[in-house]
């Protein structure tokens, strides 16, 4: 599997994503600077976490309009897999590749800790390595991860298996107590219609080493490597 990680001014988890991809899939991704309008021929594009353009105006808004994103959109249109993590998820919604928006966390504070995630659809190239309903422990680190979409959009996402992950409690119960940021229906990650684009707030790339707290993020990268090789 060949992959690329986009670097915007202000990206800061591109190294983490690089590390996870290299370590879990065995092939190191290419880092692509945002001003390069050429995207290399790859099977997967990762839009990493960080504070692109300082997250000024709205998180991800300015990055969504950068030249490289035109190229990413074009590739996504051709079915190339795109993964947006945290700020990357925000950028993908701002760019219109995924529906909805990410608002300020309900408690208004930045929150960094491990959360429990329930795998809602294990039948995709991103999640094939997980069991349906499996509960993962993965860190979050964001200020604006409160997923919002109107009721009709949310219904549509749910009916078409486009909810990838939900925040839950350790036993898998999807409750308000398990929701760290106020996201609608506890949604932590969603797919596009063809399930070739995934955006999620949690950081699977920071859950690949048991000494750092969890290896539950490896499954996502392994799934991709298997599906795309």
């Amino acid at each position, binding site marked *: 599997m060949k992959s690329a990680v986009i670097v915007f*001014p*202000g*990206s*800061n*988890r591109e*190294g*983490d994503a690089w*590390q*996870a991809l290299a370590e879990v899939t065995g092939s190191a991704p290419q880092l692509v600077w945002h*001003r390069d309008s050429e995207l290399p021929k790859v099977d997967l594009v990762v839009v990493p*976490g*960080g*504070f692109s*353009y*300082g*997250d*000024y105006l709205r998180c991800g808004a300015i990055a969504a309009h950068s030249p490289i994103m035109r190229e990413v959109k074009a590739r996504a249109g051709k079915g190339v897999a795109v993964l947006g993590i945290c700020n990357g998820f925000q950028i993908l919604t701002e760019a219109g590749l995924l529906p909805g928006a990410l608002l300020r966390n309900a408690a208004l*504070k*930045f*929150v*960094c*800790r491990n959360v429990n995630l329930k795998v809602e659809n294990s039948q995709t190239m991103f999640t094939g390595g997980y069991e349906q309903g499996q509960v993962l422990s993965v*860190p979050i*680190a964001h*200020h604006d991860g409160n997923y919002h979409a109107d009721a009709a959009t949310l219904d549509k996402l749910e009916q078409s298996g486009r909810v990838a992950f939900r925040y839950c409690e350790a036993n898998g119960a999807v409750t308000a107590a398990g929701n760290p940021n106020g996201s609608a229906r506890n949604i932590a990650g969603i797919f596009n219609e063809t399930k070739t684009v995934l955006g999620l707030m949690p*950081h699977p*790339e*920071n859950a*690949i*080493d048991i*000494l*750092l*707290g969890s290896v539950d993020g490896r499954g996502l990268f392994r799934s991709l490597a298997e599906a795309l090789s």
Partner: protein
Amino acid sequence: MTAFATTASITPNIVAEHGLTADEYQSILKIMGRAPNLTELGIFSVMWSEHCSYKSSRRWLKRLPTEGPVVIQGPGENAGVIDIGDGQAVVFKMESHNHPSFIEPYQGAATGVGGIMRDVFTMGARPIANLNALRFGSPADPKTRHLVAGVVAGIGGYGNCMGVPTVGGEVNFHPSYNGNILVNAMTVGLAQADKIFYSKAAGVGNPVIYVGAKTGRDGIHGATMASAEFNEDSEEKRPTVQVGDPFTEKLLLEACLELMATDAIVSIQDMGAAGLTSSSVEMSSKGGLGIEFDLDKVPVRETGMTAYEIMLSESQERMLMVLKPEAMEKARAIFEKWELDFAVIGRLTDTGRLVLKKDGKVQADMPVEPLVSEAPVYDRPTAATPAQAPVAASALPAIEPLAALKTLLACPDLASKRWIWEQYDHLVMGRTLQRPGGDAAVVRLPDSKKGLAVSTDCTPRYCFADPKMGGAQAVAESWRNLTAVGATPLALTDNMNFGNPQRPEIMGQFAGCVEGMREACLALDYPVVSGNVSLYNETNGKGILPTPAIGGVGLLQNADHSVSLKFKAEGDAIILLGA
């Protein structure tokens, strides 16, 4: 010859407003051989402020042990540097932003974090961990809540955006900090031992370059403010506080590290408190050279800025560099790539003088060396802290143990600080082996088994009761916290926060803490490689508890073997060690 700019004559009032004494002004007259103009006076006032000159503390700081086999660079540069083997070096320092954080907690704390990170990456290191040491007033004081919220949000706001994990810190509450909170921030960076960058300028004729953000009228009185005691109306005066832009700093970090990977830089210095003044004087004095600026070339974001304002501005996210002339275009390309301002604003001279030109006039012309070497040094009187009468255990009322435990657990100093560190991204970079909440945090080094343990420590009430014991205890606690996670302590940085040094009892606390720190450092082979002093933490004549915050760094050869404090399994034996 260019005309010389004169300004309104300097009155005793103006001298006093610049925080200079009549004696200090007499020295200035002697050095200059004439009356200074306002710009020149401003430059003296900054360089001779407590913050830049350490005039009250220098005599005592010399007592601290600063040498050892691992020390590559001790105090005196932007940050301390130690050798951790394999060609790697660790660069670290702690710095205070107390007064600005009291006036505007979010921006004050944020720019404090920004400043200390610049100190570390200026030396060629990539920051890999941030810590802090915070003291607030009584939790019952309504203002405390506002200050805590703002400071914590500001530290997170800046550090999170920079993508540097904030992995540890400490927080105390005590009424003595009601009007003088302490915000001490520490950054630890990793560099190649043979690629450390210093501030000493060299090469007559070499261009001096300004990079980063534009200069505005931010915090023009900041450096003098940081050295002046608070009184009732300082809140009213509301000096322009600096606003931080972590996004620009992130670009500056990446651009500087990219340039440092080439062979372009002769010397580099960040513009911290007292901005262009202290950076240029420091660079040129260390190199024994002069420097000449064309201030019309300085990138500004406001119109009509005077030489005085440009020299004293504390706008953030700026750097001054001396480049090899042949590397200019390479450097310019890098800064353009990162969309940062890049301007040649002057050159090095052999005159030993700082000469500032603007609007076709010479705005200042003064010798560099005396700005540093003739800065006042005071041997202020000290009064020893009287020994406390021992408290006999029998004299204390009997307490029900469970109730006592509950009281302790509910005490704000001991209660969990999870709600604070969860607002900091402590995981970015993906190498945080021991998260906040333990004795020390541990971060793994990239592509290596090695790891660093880091911690900040001080117990101000011990220092208040017995400065010498308290100073020694803070160092010992730091050492213990590092060893407790499995690290070998290597060196420390400190942040000496005290009241008004002109009061003998405060100076006595300072001297006592230093002596205690010295003894502990010598006993433990634990040298001080950098530090910062913040004095005049007083409101209406009442000082804070003496607070010498210690930031310790230790090394683990195999960080995967670091240990945490939690009990791991039922049935495990519990062993109590030590005295």
